[in-house]
């Protein structure tokens, strides 16, 4: 059997087993082990556990639970609500300021917590009711939060990027920095749209009122005294300091990425203890148990994905598939388009961690051969996977929104999200035309590669 036929068989077997509903981690392990049994030397089955252990026992990968712990510590405290309220008191004068406050709060929270669903639920829980109370349409309010939440895997630290750095053998520090520019770009695009849409809804509300209709809360004035504004700061500043401190530790050369994860987790726990009095075992238990639940699930998928790629590489499937893609002689940008389309389709079914580890050995060699910078591609791929988090049918953030605002019909949430998906698509185009948006910052700080 030639390698491509074997590859097609491998892919088909994976689809069948995954769609049987078997947990992704076990499904990947079952397919990999079966192919080892049928197509590899008998002795390879004896080393299966050693393979999994050796691939997993990397301090970079194993720092993931600590990043999750930091996110959970901040996410399960009232920090999200305070952050959102503080930004709102300062920005409420700007037209659409409430929408902007939500986007900013999502971005800042994402940069601290590193997880999209955590960001969505922490900021959305306070932000969605407030936006609706102030007259924003439910779909618009939901769209802002769903889209703002996706910044979680783009702004550092991001678990998705840790995996990409490992799979593509790229510098994690550089990759983290490369996400900042596009993150700011998306924040600007989302905020710009929030202003546009809020003004449109404002004018509509005004027209209805002037025509003798009901007075929408949009038309009410809101006022905060300087004292109120200043009083909001002490609760937020510690978290901003944490955010900056961790970045300085990482880029100032004080700590490795894994040490940063440990330091960040510990500081987050200390901060919630000081600011919110969350320190008793009873208070900490839900934070730690949520962390363990999520990281165990993720790390088992990661371990088995690595075994899956090992088998794919041993049987020369990844190399043959990569050569096949190269052999199609697609133009540079068509190649990129085809690969990104594939990532979008995978995004319908799989979480970003599996997409990266399963596809990296196949898609990265052709991209490298076509002259793409793999750091830049990592960022583009991340933005595309972010779109997967909010587009139907399985966008995770849509379900988070459904959870925190159950009375908004899913149809409204989806329509509310569409403009943001388009904006993200626009951001991908901008990144293709101006790759410097992503690569300039790492080149400036760490030198040109």
């Amino acid at each position, binding site marked *: 059997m030639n390698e491509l036929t074997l590859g097609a068989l491998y892919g088909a077997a994976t689809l069948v087993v*995954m*769609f*049987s*509903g*078997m*947990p*992704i*981690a*076990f*499904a990947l*392990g*079952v397919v990999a082990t079966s192919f080892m049994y049928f197509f590899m030397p008998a002795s390879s*089955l*004896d080393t*299966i*556990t050693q393979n*999994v*252990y050796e691939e*997993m*026992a*990397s*301090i970079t990968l*194993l720092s993931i*639970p*600590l990043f999750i*712990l930091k996110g*959970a510590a901040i996410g399960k405290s009232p920090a999200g609500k305070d952050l959102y309220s503080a930004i709102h008191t300062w920005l409420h004068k700007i037209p659409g300021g409430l929408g902007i406050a939500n986007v900013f709060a999502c971005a800042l929270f994402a940069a601290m917590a590193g*997880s999209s*669903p955590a960001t969505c*639920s922490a900021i959305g829980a306070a932000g969605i009711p407030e936006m609706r109370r102030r007259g924003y349409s439910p779909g618009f309010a939901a769209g802002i939060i769903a889209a703002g939440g996706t910044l979680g895997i783009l702004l550092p630290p991001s678990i998705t990027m840790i995996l990409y750095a490992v799979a593509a053998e790229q510098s994690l520090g550089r990759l983290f920095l490369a996400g900042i520019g596009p993150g700011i770009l998306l924040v600007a695009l989302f905020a710009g749209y929030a202003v546009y849409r809020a003004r449109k809804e404002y004018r509509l509300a005004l027209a209805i009122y002037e025509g003798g209709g009901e007075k929408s809360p949009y038309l009410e004035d809101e006022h905060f005294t300087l004292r109120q504004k200043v009083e909001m700061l002490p609760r937020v500043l510690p978290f901003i300091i944490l955010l900056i401190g961790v970045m300085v*530790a990482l880029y100032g050369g*004080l*700590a490795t990425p*894994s*040490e940063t*994860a*440990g*330091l960040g*987790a*510990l500081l987050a*726990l200390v901060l919630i203890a000081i600011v919110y009095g969350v320190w008793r075992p009873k208070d*900490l238990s839900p934070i*730690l*148990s*949520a*962390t*363990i639940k*999520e*990281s*165990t*699930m*993720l*790390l*088992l*998928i990661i371990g088995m994905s690595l075994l899956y790629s090992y088998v794919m590489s041993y049987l020369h499937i990844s190399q043959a598939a990569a050569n096949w893609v190269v052999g199609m002689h697609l133009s540079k940008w068509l190649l990129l388009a085809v690969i990104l389309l594939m990532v979008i389709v995978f995004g319908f*079914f799989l979480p970003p961690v599996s997409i990266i580890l399963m596809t990296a050995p196949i898609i990265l060699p052709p991209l490298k051969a076509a002259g793409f910078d793999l750091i830049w591609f990592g960022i583009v791929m991340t933005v595309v996977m972010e779109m997967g988090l909010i587009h139907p049918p*399985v966008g*995770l953030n849509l*379900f988070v929104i459904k*959870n925190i605002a159950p009375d908004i019909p899913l149809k409204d949430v989806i329509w509310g999200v569409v403009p943001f998906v388009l904006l993200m698509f626009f951001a991908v185009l901008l990144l293709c035309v101006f790759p410097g948006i992503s690569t300039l910052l790492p080149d400036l700080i760490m030198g040109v590669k």
Partner: protein
Amino acid sequence: MSHGFDLQPQAGAGPAVPDNAALAAVSALLDKLNRALVKLSMLALIMTALVLTYSVVSRYFFSAPTDWQDEASVFMLVGVTFFCTASVQSYRGHIGIEALASLLPRRVNAVRLFFVDLVSLLFCAFFAWKSWTLFYEAWSEGQTTSSTFAPPLWIPYSMMAAGMSLLAIQLLVQTLARATNKKEAS
């Protein structure tokens, strides 16, 4: 599809109880063991954060670099991952693609779920068995990691073997429960 993130924290919610009395007793015992291991893992997680912070502090403020912190952290986090995997399985927290569930007739779906559990069980049992042989080799040959600190490799291997064995037992209970439950679980 669920992604396994903690959207609705179910504080205190335990795993589904099998109808069969003997299975229910084993399941309750496993639940106790899982809870104890999760508590131990919580401590290990905090310890790891402390160890990594200590290494930054000791290197930066006391110019005393440590060489053991990465491996100690890896061992602890390998322990956390494998020790808690049975607990995650006990409430079916390992995510999968459930797109077919709503399309299949009820009986076919029940058969599907049974086979999914059975094949998962066979895989995890095989993995557990191979982990024990790996542990035995590392133990009898005195294998260590290749670093200067060189801790013995039987430590993480034993945690992997124990965790995967517990996961296999958990899956065995769940598979038997599917076969013996009077009412089909959804």
